[in-house]
Each structure stands twice: as structure tokens, then as C-alpha cells.
């Protein structure tokens, strides 16, 4: 019996197995790793956005008594290591050799006795730059006179990365031509940053005798990192061990391979001593994976009575100076083409142009589910703009257009097949919890008094759990994940998984999946992750894929163990396996429940002397690799209430109701926590956060003084609830949840802001809806 209340085994609220170490300060994060003889590295970064490197003089730094080495791009060039392949198959400079292409780009790496000396020595490196004009506005990146950023790439004549489209342009245009109503709206989803509390870093250790490289690093995808390190450095992959210990938040920021990781590796090999690199907050904000940065020109077509017919959009996607977005390789705009949203429409088309600018690389991060945040923002804002033009209530308009339950599995007009949903039920539940009718009455009274109250409605459908091998890979690696389950003779178990928690509670949730399948209590199951020498191969945690992919692998491997246990039990009970039936935790003879064996008894017997049928090996251990047949499609209905101070234009979120459906719920406490976190992200993105640049490409969001993140004072007490519509193809019916709220909340909040500003005739305000922006909107400005 577990100490955790009413549901002793399997699914249900369960305190986390991770907590005991964290509440004692005994978590082990990368910067906590201390090794004997360890040196410290620091990165010299470009002070400007675009410049040619004329000279680098590191002689003074090398004379610093505590400096062991200085590595420049030219040193790396001689070894073929100056450039690395990105996850999007572009080339990114490890250390700059020819030009710097964004402010904060890596130029040199200093290795010294301690972290302070390494920083001191950065000041002693003299770099001469010849300034070049910077490309800052992505909409001007393709102008004929725009400076060419990627002159390193043969054949690259402009700043275009890709042109990509999805849907049927001709069919969509026809629907638009014949529609009663067409509403167009320009929308910018600004550049933001995941800014995990723990910045990125690495400790590299190289054993010259064995040739083994061990890298502790802040990665959400340890196995993918190992493969990429092998490909970049030429070191044999079996001699590389990547350990991702406790990770202090990731949100997509810790998926890419950063130059600092490689510099630590190269430094460790060169000096023969362990090297630690830990970036500071400004380095994190200015150089690592940003999020979003989509400039969208959207349009929605409808009948006069509010039947939505089609959606189309043209996007300029700012990918920064190197295309390093971490997404499935054949999806240059991620899963943006799920922008038809939760509505049954006739036609859709999108055209996305990716461009280089003199800004940090990235794009897919901050819990966006591979650009679904951008897609949901587009469609949910367009639906509200349509409601505005038609004078129809935003909730009523959605209820009239949602995909109905009998249409599932539903193929949307850009090809995605939504697995399951009962959208109307979820939206009606949210409206009921919020008491929507009463809210509208309260709003009317407040408006009469000159107060600005806004009610935002939002509905989203996510597509998570990448993904089927035949469609999705990263650099040719299929997006499948493994699970390995060992059941020890005394009935205790160890599950090894390829995904990597950054706070999602995998050690608890995955133990609960095994517990549900095998009847072994969660406290008897340890979950091993984050070490490539101890876990099976897989692509890691991002895009809400852990439960859809590795959670499925875990259920499958547990069922394999259960089937092995059936054979062993049959031998123990001298019965035929076919004559046994399973009740949680026990195989027993059909019709004779007294005659049975618990999983613990079977585990001991499986390693004992029970005679097993020919071909059946001892033990219960099993391993699997899961290839998901489709993505899972969690969804939700959100309602946000804001109050705007008419004097200062400051927006306050006073209520937020979130009703999520992620299918089967494994640990409701953890799910609720994931939703809370995402909603807070949404408040930050919608109202506060932006990585902005001046016209010279200087980053204006390079510290937490400038990049504003919500504190406890900017967010309300969340009102969460749920519906359950299991995924038909997932072994336990579960869907992902980690990013739902980050995806669903920004448009809901902006919808509320615009609703509040309706008396001013405002249809749209771009994010972040800062007091300044809202103030100008109230006075007729954009």
C-alpha cells in the first residue's frame, strides 16, 4: 500500500519521487558538477550584429597567469571544427572565422583556472571588426539591397532560407472570392525567449587512455546530442557518454547543440583536464534558441451568418543568422500548418518564407510544439477579428464552427489527422465554470461606468508526440524512443527511458505507467534517464512528446514483461498460459482465483529454478522502441478576464479558466502543474516578454532587467478543469500536455485585451500588450 492515499497503484495523484532531493538542495545540475583538476571556460562574444573580423589578438590573454588556453575560430578552422551542422542541416559557426552575424555570437573561448579569471581574460582579447550594415527587420531581409548575411554558403545570393507552402492555394482563393465576408489581419508573434531558470552549460572530461569523452550538459535530448557530437567531432559514438543530470527547466531552449558545449569538449581534449562552461543570463538570452518571430498576414473567409469557410496566411519567419531551429527535418515551418485549428473549414493555405537576419539563431522553443503556438495564435485571433466584424459573440462563433465529435478521426485541410475530440463539451464546460453569461453582464455594467473589462475566449488543438518514422526525422534520425524494463528477483523494477525530464516529473509519471500495467507499486520502480550509457536510444523531450512516445514505449514494454510473466506463471502453476487471466499485479487460473502468482512471486521464479518452456529465457526483462502511428491531439478551451487601467493602460489578468483535454490522465497533480506553468508563460508572452533589437541589431532584451518575466504578482490563481477524450491509438489513451497552455493562452489573453478595448474601436493589438502599446491603441495608433 502506498503512502499516497486512495489509489495505491497506477494512475492518480501521487507526490513526486523527484521531490526529496530538490527540497533538500540535493538536486544535481550541470554547474554543480565539480571534478578534480577542473578548469573553467568562458566565451568571448561579438559586441556587434554584423561585421567582418579583421584580426584577433589573444596574446595578452595567453599571458594571464591563470589562463591555460585560448581557442579562436581560426584554430578550429585548421582542424575542420570551425563550423557545425545544425539540427536544421544548416552550418553554424562554432567560433567565428570570417564574420560575426549576430550580437553575442561566439568568437573565442578562454580556459582558465577559475570562472573569474576566465572572464578577466576575455577582456584581454583584442578583436578588430569592420562593421557591416545589419539586417534587423525580417520583412526587409529579401530587399534587393539588403546586405548578404550568409556569404559563407556557396550559391546563397540573398537572405532567403526556404519557401514552403501547405494546403490548396487555388481552392482557398476560390472560397475567398465567393465568400460573403473576408477579414484580413496582420499579426506579429514577436521574438521571445524560454529563459529557463538554469542557463545552459557543460562539463567535458576526456580520458586519453580509454578515449572516452564524458559530457555533462544541459540537454533535453542526450542521445541526439551524443550522435551530433560524434558527427561534428569525428569521435566514435561509443566513446561518447552524455549525461544530462537534473535540468533546471528547458522549454525547448536546451534542445539545440550550442558552440559552448563543443568548446568545452575541445578544451577538455586540448588541455587534458575537465573543462566547465556555464553561460550567464545575458549569454542565454542573447545567443541561445529564441522562440517565435513570425510576421503573419492572415485572412479568414466566412458566410454572413458566421460559418467559417477558409483561412490563409503568408508568413515571414525570422530564423536569425543560422538556421538552427530544432524541428523535424522535413518541416521547415514546424507544424505551423495545423493552423486550421479546431474548426471544420472548406479550404486553407499557408506560405512561409524563412529568412536570415542578424539575430541569434533558433525559432522553435518555449513550449511551442513546433510552431503550433504561432498557428493557434493566428487562427484564434482571426476568429475573434471575424466575430468583431460580424458582431457575433466570440464563444457563439466558435461553438458554431468547432469540429463535431462524429467527425473524428478528422483530416484537416492541410493533411493532419486529428485522433479524437469532443470540442463542444470542453468549451461549454469552460463557459460554465467562468459563468460566461454573468461575465458579459458584469462587463456591460463596467463599460457603462467607463471601466475596461475584457473577456477572451480561446480554443486550441495541439499536435504532439513526434513522430511516425515514415514522416518525421531529425538529421535522418527517426523520432522514436525506447524503454527498457528490468524486474529484479524481489519484484522491484528499474525502467530506463530515452526522454529527459526538465521538471515534468518523469520519475513519477513513468513509474505510474509501469505500476498501472504490472501492479508493482510506484515506490518499487526507479526510473533511469539522462545518461546515454544507461538508457536506450531515443530523441528526447520536447514538443510534448514524452508521454505520447516514451509513455507509450513504457506501457508497451510493461506489457511485454506481463506476457513473459504469464509464461513463467503458467510454469509455476502448472497450467497453460492460455488458461491464465490477469488482474492487476497477478496472473491466476481462470475460474480458480485462489490459484495464482503475484508479479513479485513470478519475478523471483523467473530467476529461479522453475522449469521454463523451450526457448523461454530466464528473467522478465524487456526492451522496446516505440514508433507512434500518429501524433496525439490534445486540446482545450480557455477563458481569460482582464482589467485595463484606463489611466495607465496596464493590463491585469484577473481570472483565467483553463479546461484541458489530454486524454487519459496519469498524474492529475503533475498535469495541473504543467498547465499552470504554461498559462504563466502565456501571460509573459502576451503582455510582457519580447526580445527586441534596435536598428543596428543590438539586442534590447539581454537581461532580466529588460526581458520581463511574470512573477507571482502578474498572474492570478488559475482555475483549471478537464475533460477526458482518450487517444484511440496510444496504448493507454494518453496525449501530451506539457505545452498546451503555452500554446493556448496567448491568443486568449490578447482576445481579452482586444475585447476590453472594443469601446475604442480596437480590433487588434500586437503582443506583448504592454501599457505603451495598449495606450497607443486606445488613441487610434497601431
Amino acid at each position, binding site marked *: 500500500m502506498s503512502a499516497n492515499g486512495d489509489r495505491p497503484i497506477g494512475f492518480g495523484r501521487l507526490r513526486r519521487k523527484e521531490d526529496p532531493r530538490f*527540497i533538500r538542495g540535493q538536486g544535481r545540475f550541470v554547474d554543480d558538477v565539480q571534478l578534480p583538476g577542473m578548469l573553467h571556460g568562458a566565451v568571448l562574444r561579438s559586441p556587434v550584429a554584423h561585421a567582418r573580423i579583421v584580426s584577433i589578438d589573444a596574446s595578452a590573454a595567453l599571458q594571464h597567469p591563470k589562463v591555460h588556453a585560448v581557442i579562436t575560430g581560426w584554430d578550429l578552422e585548421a582542424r575542420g571544427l570551425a563550423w557545425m551542422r545544425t539540427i536544421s542541416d544548416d552550418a553554424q559557426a562554432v567560433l567565428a572565422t570570417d564574420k560575426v552575424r549576430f550580437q553575442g555570437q561566439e568568437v573565442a573561448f578562454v580556459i582558465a583556472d577559475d570562472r573569474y579569471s576566465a572572464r578577466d581574460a576575455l577582456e584581454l582579447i583584442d578583436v578588430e571588426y569592420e562593421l557591416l550594415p545589419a539586417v534587423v527587420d525580417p520583412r526587409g531581409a529579401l530587399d534587393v539591397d539588403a546586405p548578404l548575411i550568409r556569404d559563407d554558403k556557396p550559391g546563397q545570393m540573398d537572405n532567403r532560407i526556404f519557401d514552403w507552402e501547405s494546403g490548396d492555394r487555388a481552392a482557398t482563393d476560390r472560397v475567398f472570392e465567393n465568400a460573403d465576408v473576408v477579414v484580413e489581419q496582420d499579426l506579429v508573434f514577436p521574438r521571445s525567449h524560454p529563459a529557463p531558470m538554469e542557463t545552459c552549460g557543460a562539463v567535458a572530461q576526456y580520458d586519453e587512455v580509454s578515449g572516452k569523452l564524458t559530457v555533462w550538459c544541459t540537454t533535453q535530448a542526450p542521445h541526439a546530442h551524443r550522435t551530433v557530437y560524434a558527427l561534428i567531432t569525428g569521435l566514435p559514438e561509443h566513446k561518447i557518454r552524455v549525461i544530462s543530470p537534473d535540468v*533546471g527547466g528547458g522549454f525547448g531552449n536546451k534542445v539545440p547543440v550550442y558552440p559552448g558545449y563543443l568548446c568545452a569538449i575541445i578544451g577538455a581534449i586540448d588541455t587534458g583536464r575537465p573543462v566547465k562552461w556555464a553561460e550567464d*543570463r545575458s549569454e542565454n538570452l542573447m545567443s541561445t534558441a529564441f522562440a517565435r518571430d513570425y510576421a503573419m498576414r492572415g485572412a479568414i473567409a466566412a458566410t454572413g451568418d458566421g460559418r467559417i469557410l477558409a483561412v490563409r496566411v503568408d508568413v515571414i519567419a525570422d530564423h536569425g543568422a543560422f538556421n538552427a531551429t530544432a524541428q523535424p527535418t522535413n518541416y521547415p515551418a514546424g507544424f505551423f500548418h495545423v493552423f486550421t485549428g479546431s474548426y471544420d473549414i472548406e479550404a486553407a493555405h499557408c506560405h512561409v518564407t524563412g529568412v536570415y537576419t542578424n539575430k541569434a539563431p533558433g525559432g522553435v522553443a518555449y513550449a511551442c510544439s513546433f510552431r503550433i503556438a504561432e498557428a493557434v495564435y493566428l487562427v484564434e485571433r482571426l476568429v475573434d477579428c471575424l466575430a468583431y466584424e460580424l458582431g457575433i459573440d466570440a464563444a457563439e462563433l466558435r461553438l458554431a464552427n468547432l469540429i463535431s465529435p462524429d467527425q473524428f478521426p478528422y483530416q484537416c485541410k492541410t493533411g493532419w489527422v486529428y485522433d479524437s475530440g469532443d470540442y463542444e463539451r470542453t468549451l461549454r464546460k469552460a463557459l460554465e465554470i467562468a459563468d460566461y453569461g454573468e461575465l458579459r453582464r458584469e462587463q456591460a455594467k463596467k463599460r457603462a461606468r467607463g471601466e475596461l473589462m475584457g473577456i477572451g475566449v480561446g480554443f486550441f488543438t495541439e499536435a504532439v508526440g513526434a513522430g511516425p518514422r515514415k514522416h518525421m526525422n531529425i538529421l535522418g534520425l527517426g523520432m522514436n524512443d525506447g524503454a527498457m524494463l528490468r524486474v529484479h528477483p524481489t519484484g522491484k523494477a528499474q525502467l530506463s527511458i530515452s526522454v529527459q525530464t526538465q521538471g515534468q516529473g518523469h520519475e513519477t509519471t513513468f513509474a505510474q505507467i509501469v505500476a498501472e500495467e504490472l501492479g508493482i507499486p510506484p515506490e518499487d520502480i526507479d526510473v533511469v534517464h539522462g545518461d546515454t550509457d544507461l538508457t536506450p536510444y531515443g530523441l528526447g523531450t520536447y514538443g510534448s512528446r514524452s508521454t505520447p512516445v516514451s509513455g507509450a514505449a513504457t506501457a508497451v514494454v510493461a506489457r511485454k514483461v506481463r506476457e513473459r510473466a504469464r509464461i513463467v506463471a503458467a510454469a509455476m502453476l502448472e497450467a497453460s498460459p492460455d488458461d491464465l487471466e490477469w488482474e492487476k499485479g497477478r496472473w491466476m487460473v481462470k475460474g480458480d482465483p485462489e490459484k495464482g502468482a503475484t508479479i513479485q512471486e513470478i519475478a523471483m521464479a523467473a530467476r529461479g529454478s522453475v522449469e521454463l518452456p523451450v526457448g523461454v529465457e530466464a528473467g522478465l526483462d524487456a526492451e522496446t522502441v516505440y514508433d507512434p502511428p500518429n501524433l496525439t491531439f490534445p486540446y482545450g478551451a480557455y477563458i481569460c478576464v482582464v482589467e485595463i487601467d484606463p489611466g495607465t493602460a496596464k493590463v491585469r489578468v484577473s481570472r483565467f479558466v483553463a479546461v484541458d483535454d489530454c486524454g487519459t490522465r496519469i498524474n492529475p497533480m503533475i498535469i495541473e502543474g504543467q498547465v499552470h506553468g504554461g498559462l504563466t508563460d502565456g501571460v509573459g508572452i502576451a503582455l510582457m516578454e519580447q526580445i527586441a533589437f534596435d536598428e543596428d541589431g543590438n539586442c534590447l532584451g539581454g537581461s532580466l532587467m529588460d526581458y520581463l*518575466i511574470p512573477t507571482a504578482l502578474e498572474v492570478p490563481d*488559475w482555475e483549471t478543469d478537464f475533460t477526458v477524450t482518450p487517444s484511440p491509438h496510444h496504448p493507454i489513451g494518453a496525449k501530451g500536455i506539457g505545452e498546451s497552455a503555452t500554446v493556448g493562452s496567448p491568443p486568449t489573453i490578447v482576445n481579452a485585451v482586444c475585447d476590453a478595448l472594443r469601446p475604442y474601436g480596437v480590433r487588434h493589438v500586437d503582443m506583448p500588450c504592454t501599457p505603451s502599446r495598449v495606450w497607443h491603441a486606445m488613441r487610434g495608433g497601431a
Partner: protein
Amino acid sequence: MQVTASVNSREYKRDVEPRTLLVHFLRDELGLTGTHWGCDTSNCGTCVVLMDGEPVKSCTVLAATAEGHEIVTVEGLEVDGVLDPVQQGFSEMHGLQCGFCTPGMMLTARALLERNADPSEAEIREAISGQICRCTGYATIVRSVRWAAEHRAGS
């Protein structure tokens, strides 16, 4: 320079550079890695420790100035194998996810409860408003502190 500091009721003497920050002194010199570092600008609060019972951001305190003061870090919350109610509360109410901001949050909560044994939600939010959590959305942290208030040590 030599710095003598009392941390978690134990006296430590170390020879450090005068510019050494308290956060690095605790982490690198004393090996107390439960105190984290997150921003350098006093915004994130993951480095919060108690100095004479008051929360301070150890990334903006020189180790040298800690001399003569009593420092408490997360490692000092558990006494004789008994968890502080704040530690229990964070686990009971899911007040943590990645665990990185948690030590600072718990120490601020402990200081709040010392001066206000029964804080309201608004008072708790005010008290932790100098600290950032990217995972929890704060509501469960508020509930964790309330749990601790309702389960005082010895009660």
C-alpha cells in the same frame, strides 16, 4: 583575503579573492550547491539565502560582507533529519517542478512565516515577488506556503 562565515550554524574559514560573491563562495568553496545562480542582476532570486533571518540575493552579496552574520541555505532547513514544514509543503502541494528556483523560494517562505505565521495569499505572492519560477505558475507555491503555515513544526 580570509573570510570567516557562519553557514547553517557551522563556521567556515576560506581564503578567497575579495570580489568573491557569496553565491560562488557557498557553491564553489563550501560545496553547498543547493543555492543556485540564475541572473547576476538580482531579478530571478534563485540565489536567495537567509542572512540573519532575512532573505538576500547571494549573487549581489560579497562573501566578505557575510562575515559576522549567520547564513542559512537550503541545506540548513532540515534539522536533525526533520524536514522544515516549508519543505514538506512544497512536496505536498507540488510547489516545484524542475527544482531550480525551489531553494530560494523555500527560504523566502521560511522568512515570511517567521514574521507572519498565517500569511494570506496576497502576502505570500508579495513575499515571493522578487523571485521567478518558470515552471509552476506560482499558484502551487502559494499553496505550499499555506500548507507550511497550517502545519507548523511541532503542531
